[in-house]
């Protein structure tokens, strides 16, 4: 019962955090486009960058956890 049993739990928590963040972002973007359909392009453009940075955070966490599992 060493500490490596908690590594997949950490991965699951990271994925939950990233999914919640991306979901809130997508919801805000959808609401903004619903209020002002003319600004659809600008809103999409503004939302894309934080979206992919957040996805990158989730993937970085996944990579580090994979490394931890491999190097144990």
């Amino acid at each position, binding site marked *: 019962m060493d500490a490596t049993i908690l590594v997949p739990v950490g991965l699951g928590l990271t994925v939950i955090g990233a999914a919640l963040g991306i979901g809130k972002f997508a919801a805000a973007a959808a609401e903004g486009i619903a209020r002002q359909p003319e600004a659809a392009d600008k809103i999409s453009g503004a939302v*894309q960058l934080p979206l*992919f*940075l957040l996805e*990158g955070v989730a*993937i*970085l966490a*996944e990579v580090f956890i994979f490394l931890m599992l491999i190097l144990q």
Partner: protein
Amino acid sequence: MVASSTDNSGLTVLEQVGPNIIHHVSNSDISHPIVHIPKLFGIDFSITKHVFMLWVVAIIVATVMIYPIQKYVKSNGKEKSRWTIMIEYIVEFIRDAISGPNVGPKWIMTWTPLFLTFFFFILFANGIGMIPIFDLIGLIDRFIFQTSPDSFINHLLHGGVTATGNFNVTAGLATITFFAIIVAGVREHGFIKHWKNLVPHGLAWPIYFILIPIEIMGLLVKPFALTMRLAANMTGGHIAILALLSLMAIIGEMFHSAVAGIGVAIISIPMSVAISGLEIIVVLVQAYVFTLLTAVFVGMAINVHH
């Protein structure tokens, strides 16, 4: 996978599945390269599977892209083929939606070729990774030609097909982004002012002690994230597909009957097809994301608007 396994050394299927999947996704071993090239300056330049795929993708992209575009340019706009029209649609999309709003009208013609190169290279490299051509060649070789295990065809079977699934390849692409950001900033603002633009001006002076290390770390983390995002997305999809396909062998081993394994194929193969469909979407999206983020980072170096 069937054709490339050379011996079943008495391990159970469950023990063989893991290393088999890893071998199918990662690069071939440097000690058994496809073409052996001696060491230059201490670096082994032998051609492994991913290096071979890089050259194949580069040749395919060059012939498929450069030749029709040159024909179009030399004939002064009398485009004949539908393929040129499709290339033109993608080029205009990248120029107007990715390059223009981020880089600004002054530098759009300087940086759009770089973004286009990134987009088409990553798109083709990811897409060719989805085609199991070497498995097919291995299957034909195993049952029809039966060449020796040392032949060129059998050497081609070790390792994965997706060149951009290797984080060294994507690290090379991200290094180009890193230097592109510096070059863009230096050309617009001058050498010293580009580095001064890292942090916003007009803040109280103690904040700079924390802000400057954070910004320098951000300078390095952004290309690192580009690297890992592309590499992890490409290998992850392939590992999922291979794990589902291995389910047939695992169930066959667990119940000690081949019929059970083939019966699982009713679940396993449609799910693999579905995930392959998802993979195609991921291929397109990851090429787009890499290009978009490169354009955004270059644009942030040119138009500093903290």
